[in-house]
């Protein structure tokens, strides 16, 4: 029972990084500038590195011949535990940066808490990942300010991206049964308690970036329990194609 909960919790952590990593990977060769292209795919690789660690641990719990690859590739859509935010499309560079920023601030808060988790594997993963994510926050925050407080055009594109994506932010902090279990057992953070620190950082950067969030936003919840948006099927179709078409194929 405990192991089942831990398995599901590892999916919660891994799936967010994996789906965001996949979204960033889609930009490989399509970044707005060569340097930005490399930066975004570097972040993608950081995230996939973290996913491997989470899923190696998950596969060990599952047994039955499960591997990190089968954990990543061979689940059905409703078995993925990522949030709505990370599955949102690369509409334009503003959406890419705002999505990244909203996630990075959350990610950093969670990893800091995981550094004192009661689970040693999670402590080790968090200690390795936190430096990567500290840089992600720095990268996305500076881009938030540069574009939000840039030209009229960059400002309006950024404001539009904030308007579109903010509604997915609070799902990050609404715990599922598994995340409640993690908080109660000291395996993971109490998400509700991280919300105020999140809002403080986000609002500080948005203020500097001359961007605003609508106070009457209606937030969207449900992806973490498997009710994904229409984007998810397309992501998985591309992501899983090879393994579904050629089962057990190896690189």
């Amino acid at each position: 029972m405990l192991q089942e909960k831990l398995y599901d919790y590892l999916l919660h952590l891994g799936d967010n990084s994996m789906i965001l990593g996949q979204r960033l990977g889609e930009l490989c060769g399509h970044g707005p500038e060569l340097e930005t292209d490399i930066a975004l795919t570097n972040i993608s690789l950081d995230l996939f590195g973290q996913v491997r660690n989470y899923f190696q641990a998950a596969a060990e719990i599952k047994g039955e011949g499960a591997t990190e690859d089968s954990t990543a590739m061979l689940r059905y859509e409703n078995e993925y535990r990522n949030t709505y935010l990370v599955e949102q499309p690369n509409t334009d560079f503003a959406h890419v940066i705002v999505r990244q920023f909203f996630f990075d601030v959350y990610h950093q808060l969670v990893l800091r808490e995981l550094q004192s988790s009661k689970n040693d594997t999670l402590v080790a993963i968090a200690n390795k990942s936190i430096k990567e994510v500290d840089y992600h926050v720095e990268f996305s925050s500076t881009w938030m300010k540069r574009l939000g407080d840039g030209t009229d055009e960059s400002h309006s594109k950024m404001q539009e991206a904030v308007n579109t994506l903010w509604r997915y932010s609070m799902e990050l902090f609404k715990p599922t049964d598994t995340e409640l279990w993690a908080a109660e057992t000291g395996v993971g953070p109490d998400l509700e308690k991280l919300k105020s620190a999140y809002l403080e950082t986000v609002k500080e950067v948005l203020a500097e970036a001359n961007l605003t969030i609508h106070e009457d936003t209606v937030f969207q919840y449900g992806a973490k329990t498997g009710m994904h948006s229409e984007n998810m099927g397309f992501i998985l179709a591309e992501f899983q194609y090879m393994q579904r078409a050629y089962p057990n194929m190896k690189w």
Partner: protein
Amino acid sequence: MNQEWPIWEIFIRSKNGLEHRHCGSLHAADAEMAIQNARDVYTRRQEGVSIWVVESKEITASNPAKNGEMFEPAADKVYRHPTFYELPDEIKHM
């Protein structure tokens, strides 16, 4: 109006290196972005522990057309190299 980001020259100091060495150039809108881009482009395989960036236009370079008068006069002045001393055998590492 020129919409391209300006070019920056990147200098990296490696872990065991004493000095920053020029390793290439890249595009960036400002110095902060140049540092971040340099980190992602030039240090992703652990090449460095310190980065300097200088906007290319800030560098004054010698004129290649004047290479003759600049550098060739040094060519026949071998006596400027300390190669005419006889070294005692005990000195190994010169």
